[in-house]
């Protein structure tokens, strides 16, 4: 029998042990007398390195370290939704009752509510053969989400006991399985899964459906597919968090996992408050009923920050396996990368770019590749979509985290300081951003919105592109030298920018815009463009068009026509046509 392993050295969140071989990589351990939670991150024959997820103040050398024999895992089961956890899935409300407003150390609280009873419907009988991933029971977790209890992916066997339908707590036995080796497994409402391992699925599906966000610049110009990945890079104050809040509130995912990774405490409080108060347009209940928050704010221990995004994506995969579509907001992946760097520095690893460890790209790709639309083990369809905020140092997009993220995501929504300074929100720069899903999703837009949707989008982006090159000239020599048709392009591009791309998150109608209204708005702008262009050809003055008020009417459409009264676009188009016709008649009379 070996001696119990004891602490040899303490350096910030990194603890080392000498001369022991009882640990395995990524194993969860309890450190010290206060039983702080830690994870084994390095093993040599001489030294075991552990990162500790809580404050190490007060640890002494020689204190015991206790192995648990299991990797760092999360508990999966009903009670996850509506909850707010820290980076290693400790419920913050329970921590509050245990230690008050300030978070203490070594607190041992149950992850999920062990006392709450759920109305469980058992779906199998004694004798049923079950494969990994199949559902053996279901219960309404919240009024919005039905929770399925799935056989752990690596288990299969015959049901030898099944409880009756009724009220059960999460640790009550629901069924017993006998596997092929004759071992008996007792399954309750909850199970564990290691956070750093992706949950298996049957088949990866090609992206074919957009995740609709109700944000015009995203849905129309740079759409993201269900199961896709997007990065929102932007300097401070450009509205990363705001954009993520908007997507979380309005996107058509079934479940939202919001990871506050090294961000502000007040912001998490705001998310919690707002999401609780916000009436979900789909269920009529509070949005929190289908949301889980993971809050590891910037002043909480750095190692738990590193773990938080894995915790978040594991929870998402669990619900995906039930056949739900999940959207993950990770705010911000840069803080996660910095946590990696900080721990790497404590380990005295050889740094690569800007002090980040050389394995930064591989860790990033591991994370983003856990997304996707899948056919699950039980034949359902589910997806995990990730939208990661990136906070580039010094707003410089060439820094390592932004650059490496760019290689692994397929949507890039670059936020622009100049737009944010002009209070153009969302400050997504249309010249810098892109979506690689356009072709995958073209079919969906044609079928579900309008055959002309994709043509219109191309035309709109071409106008914006043309404006950009014209503005280069204007900035040099002023707009007076341009011919009228080019001036018109600039005017129409202004309509697109102010009337279409700019969207007011605080306006009741404008905060969420359905796809058909987005389409009608595009149509109207392009209609006005073609009409006015024809008028110019008939020698109507651009100034006359500008002062006719038509352009202002188009800009205000986003406020003036409610989302549910799209037929008013027809009357408005008639009205505008009338005004433009009048301009033509006037011109003819003058001649």
């Amino acid at each position, binding site marked *: 029998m070996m001696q119990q392993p004891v602490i040899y050295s303490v350096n910030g969140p990194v603890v080392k042990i000498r001369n022991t071989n009882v640990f395995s990589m990524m194993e969860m351990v309890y450190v010290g007398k206060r039983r702080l939670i830690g994870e084994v991150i390095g093993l040599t024959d001489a030294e075991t390195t552990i990162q500790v997820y809580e404050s190490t103040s007060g640890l002494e050398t020689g204190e015991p370290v206790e192995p648990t024999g299991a990797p760092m895992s999360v508990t999966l089961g009903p009670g996850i939704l509506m909850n707010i956890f820290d980076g290693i899935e400790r419920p913050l409300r329970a921590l509050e009752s245990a230690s008050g407003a300030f978070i203490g150390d070594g607190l041992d609280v149950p992850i999920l509510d062990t006392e709450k009873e759920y109305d469980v419907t058992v779906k199998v009988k004694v004798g049923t053969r079950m494969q990994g991933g199949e559902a053996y029971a279901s219960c309404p977790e919240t009024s919005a989400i039905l929770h399925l209890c799935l056989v752990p992916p690596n288990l299969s066997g015959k049901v030898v006991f099944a409880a009756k339908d009724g009220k059960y707590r999460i640790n009550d036995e629901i069924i017993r399985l006998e596997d092929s080796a004759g071992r008996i497994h007792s399954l309750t409402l909850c199970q564990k899964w290691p956070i750093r391992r992706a949950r298996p699925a049957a088949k990866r599906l090609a992206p074919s459906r957009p995740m609709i966000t109700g944000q015009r610049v995203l849905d129309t110009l740079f759409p993201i597919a269900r199961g896709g990945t997007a990065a929102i890079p932007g300097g401070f104050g450009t509205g990363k968090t705001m954009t993520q809040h908007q997507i979380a509130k309005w996107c058509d995912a079934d479940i939202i996992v919001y990871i506050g990774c090294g961000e502000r405490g007040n912001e998490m409080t705001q998310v919690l408050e707002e999401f609780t108060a916000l009436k979900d347009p789909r269920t009529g209940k509070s949005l929190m009923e289908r949301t889980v928050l993971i809050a590891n704010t910037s002043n909480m221990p750095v190692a738990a920050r590193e773990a938080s995004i894995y915790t978040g994506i594991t929870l998402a995969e669990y619900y995906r396996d039930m056949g739900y579509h999940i959207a993950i907001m990770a705010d911000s992946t840069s803080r996660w990368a910095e946590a990696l760097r900080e721990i790497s520095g404590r380990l005295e690893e050889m740094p690569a770019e800007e002090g980040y460890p050389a394995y930064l790209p591989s860790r990033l790709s591991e994370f983003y590749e856990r997304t996707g639309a899948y056919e699950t083990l039980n034949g359902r369809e589910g997806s995990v979509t990730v939208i990661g905020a990136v906070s580039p140092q010094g707003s410089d997009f060439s820094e390592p985290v932004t650059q490496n993220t760019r290689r692994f995501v397929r949507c890039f929504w670059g936020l622009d*300081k100049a737009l944010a300074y002009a209070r153009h929100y969302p400050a997504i720069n249309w010249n810098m951003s892109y979506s690689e899903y356009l072709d995958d999703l073209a079919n969906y837009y044609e079928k579900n919105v309008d055959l002309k949707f994709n043509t219109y989008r191309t035309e709109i982006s071409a106008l914006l592109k043309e404006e950009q090159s014209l503005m280069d000239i204007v*900035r040099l020599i002023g707009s007076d030298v341009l011919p009228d048709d080019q001036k018109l392009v600039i005017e129409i591009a202004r309509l697109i920018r102010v009337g279409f791309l700019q969207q007011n998150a605080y306006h009741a109608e404008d905060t969420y815009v359905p796809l058909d209204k987005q389409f009608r708005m595009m149509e109207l702008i392009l209609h006005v463009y073609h009409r006015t262009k024809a008028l110019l050809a008939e020698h109507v003055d651009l100034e006359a068009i500008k002062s006719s008020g038509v352009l202002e009417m188009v800009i205000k459409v986003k406020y003036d026509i409610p989302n549910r009264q799209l037929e008013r676009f027809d009357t408005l188009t008639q009205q505008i046509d009338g005004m433009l016709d009048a301009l033509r008649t006037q011109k003819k009379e003058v001649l």
Partner: protein
Amino acid sequence: MSLQYFGLHSISGSLVVLDHVEGVQFDEMARIVLDDGTERTGRVAMLEGDKAILQVFEGTHGLSLTNTRTQFTGRPMEMPLSADLLGRVFTGAGRPADGLGEVVPEKFGDINGAPLNPVSRQYPRNYIQTGISSIDCLMTLIRGQKLPIFSGTGLSHNKLAVQIVQQAQIAKDSGAEFAVVFAAMGIQNDVADYFRRSFAESGVLQNVVMFLNLANDPIVERIITPRCALTAAEYLAYEKHMHILVVMTDMTAYAEALREFSSSKGEIPGRKGFPGYLYSDLASLYERAGIIEGIEGSVTQLPILTMPNDDITHPVPDLTGYITEGQIVLDRGLEQGGVYPPISVLPSLSRLMKDGIGEGYTRADHAAVANQLFASYAQVQDARSLASVIGEEELSALDKKYLEFGKYFEKCFLSQGFTENRSMEETLELGWTLLSLLPKSALDRVDDAVLNEHYAPEAAEALVRKVRERNG
């Protein structure tokens, strides 16, 4: 605990190494007594086997490998706390510096604090009126917020901070007391004196706690100065139920001290030589602003930092901006143009203002006027850069209007006297008056109804006349 260790194993910079120690805790404090009887304080920065590495707050000059006796206290760095802190002056390490003797403690507080549980926080909603138009209207300071001033050397950030402290009123239900905790890190003696004098002149000194780590004080002490200050602030806020404004200056000097200390520990540097954990470290200070649900009292932070070479992308302002809830950016061009306070409004921002203004807080039209001012002033910049290329004469009529608007905006709205305390009402009206210099169609951020109510071209003309008369 009475165990004493004689001598040291080695000394490097502000770090000393003791060997053959036992039962030492990470992060605990130690007393180092020299042979001449003087005492230093150290903190355990690392443990390895039977070695303990200590950082010595007062510096290691005069220490030798043999002339010390070290005793570990078994406690983390703590600070005596009591309501009597108010009106006192302390060193950067939290020791009395005003000759009034030790504080009689009601309790001791760990200066590192503990992270505030996000579910225990109350989302900040009540604004603090500073009487400064640009701040109140465009980047409203909210109680429980952390809103730094990004400045440069030689700009009037100190003057602005003093004005804010003197004029800050807690709007609404201000039954609770208001006090200021002032932390000086690496600032010159003259500057510290300026703050002290200003507080005394305005009669707020009894409500100020000062922690002074001056430019010639040890850098290790500088690292704990803000922590002492915030511990005092948290105590006064959450246990004595006061509303506390913490002014911390200069965060750049703090970060540089951290860098110096980090490199003496031989740590791998990140950007510009700052340690990789600068973000986490700054966050452990800034995140101590806030309000706790169900407890009267708040901690609002107003950190001041000087951007080296006026570069906002320097790591210190950059990381600060990512943690704090907005920023007030000062601009050298404005200062040289005689504008006080020289607040550059476009890059400035208060993230929390959207929920603390409008109906029930300030005035229903506040958001509208603020948005429109931002948008219109952004147009001014475009018009100016165009004018610098093609000349003012060649500008379109609208662009000329923008130039005029920009001029009066800076002259009448941004500029105000050091003792001029404008009410919210005054500020918002002034905003609308200035916007009325522009044609109605250019004000596209505002609903027509709101615009019709507040658009007042006559008032704008009157204002222009007044300014012209004043200038002769």
